[in-house]
């Protein structure tokens, strides 16, 4: 589903990603962990070209993102993204937030878009909130709407950029629950997270990033109980 070869990303003189290589298979759930500033969000944002790629190759669903012939808007319709700050559209009601892209990009009819949106709201447990505005919802509810909004495009792949980091602790669980459900349904997911419990329980594979490279990767059991790299050990000692 995703192949990354020697991905480099520079902001000016600052080299944030220094040669990332990885392969993500369909239906795989990969959690990316690591200290702040390690480049994990930048890595995720390169996967749907929210950041341009300085050097290297990112192939998503068969499309080479760094190829000027690739229609990036089309690739993005297959790649859902959930942001730390939710980024719901504040001037639109919950249901309109979800309907917008299917209607304008997928060109499905308004009634089909509405039907799809209502089903998704039920799925994330917010069926009764369809006519509210985002500002009337709690953080956890907003993030669940944001997940529904991304799912409305029926993407093949979902990217999560620290989806629970902006939430009050008691609201984290409801969002992780929705994500766990998605993983069980077989969605391909790349999740940048500080929720080690989630990574351990749900991930098929964990990537530990530090200083712009993937320092260590493996199945969660191995990473969490028997990390090989010194940096991984140090990091896990601090956060667990």
């Amino acid at each position: 589903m995703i192949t990354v070869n020697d991905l480099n990303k520079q902001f000016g003189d600052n080299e944030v990603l220094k040669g990332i290589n990885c392969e993500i298979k369909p239906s795989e759930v990969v959690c990316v962990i690591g200290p702040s500033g390690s480049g994990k969000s930048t890595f995720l944002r390169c996967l749907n070209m929210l950041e341009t790629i300085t050097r290297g190759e990112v192939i998503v669903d068969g499309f080479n993102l760094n190829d000027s012939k690739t229609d990036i808007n089309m690739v993005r319709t297959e790649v859902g993204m959930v942001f730390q700050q939710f980024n719901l559209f504040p001037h639109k009601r919950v249901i309109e937030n979800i309907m917008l892209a299917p209607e304008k990009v997928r060109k499905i009819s308004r009634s089909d878009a509405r039907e799809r949106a209502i089903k998704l709201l039920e799925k994330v447990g917010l069926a009764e909130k369809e006519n509210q505005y985002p500002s009337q919802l709690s953080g956890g509810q907003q993030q669940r709407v944001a997940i529904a909004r991304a799912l409305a495009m029926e993407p093949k792949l979902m990217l999560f950029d620290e989806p629970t980091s902006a939430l009050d602790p008691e609201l984290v669980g409801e969002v992780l629950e929705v994500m766990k459900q998605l993983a069980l349904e077989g969605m391909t997911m790349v999740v940048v997270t500080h929720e080690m419990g989630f990574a351990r329980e749900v991930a098929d594979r964990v990537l530990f990033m530090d200083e712009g490279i993937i320092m260590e990767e493996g199945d969660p059991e191995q990473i969490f109980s028997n990390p090989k790299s010194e940096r991984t050990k140090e990091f896990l000692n601090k956060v667990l």
Partner: protein
Amino acid sequence: MEGKFNWASIIDFLPELGTGLYYTLLISIVGLLIGFVLGAIFGLGRISRNKLFFGISSIYIEVIRGTPVLVQAIWIFFALPLITGYNMESITAGIVVIAINSGAYIAEVVRGSVQSIDKGQVEAGRSLGLTHNQTMRYIIWPQAFKRMIPPLGNQFIISIKDTSLLSVILVPELMFQGRLIASNYFNAVEIYTAVAVFYLAITLTLSFVLRYIERRLDVQ
């Protein structure tokens, strides 16, 4: 003070003042409508990645903001015909002055409002597969427009008052009519007070309407 001023005489001059009010409103409304279009175009120019569009917009805004309206009016009415050989009617010139002047300020209002929208909004739109133009149209503009209303109202009021300067290029607006009457009938106190009240009536009405619109848009 009793008997010194003949306030009732204002009524005799209402037809002339009415003509002035008509031209003040005409020039304000038409001028500001065009000014808004100019402002939207050049405001987008200021956030455009196209260097030429950005450059033209910047020059327009800096030149107009950096020179007084009075100079602009006199230049367009008296100097421009000498260059182009084409005489503009004073009312047309007045509309042009208000349009290009307000356009420069409105461009900055537009730019500021669009840039004030969190960039996460653009990212959310683009990540859903919306094109740049669709993201602007459905997500950024509606939010930016709401933020434009207070500074836009400010500019409208300033421009309406600026129309009084057009009396120097012989536009028969309120101030021009007032001066004509006062110099013929020596009733400066009464007439200029009446003129001031007319301007106040226009701007207060506008303030009221803008506040209403703002409240209507603030549905959340």
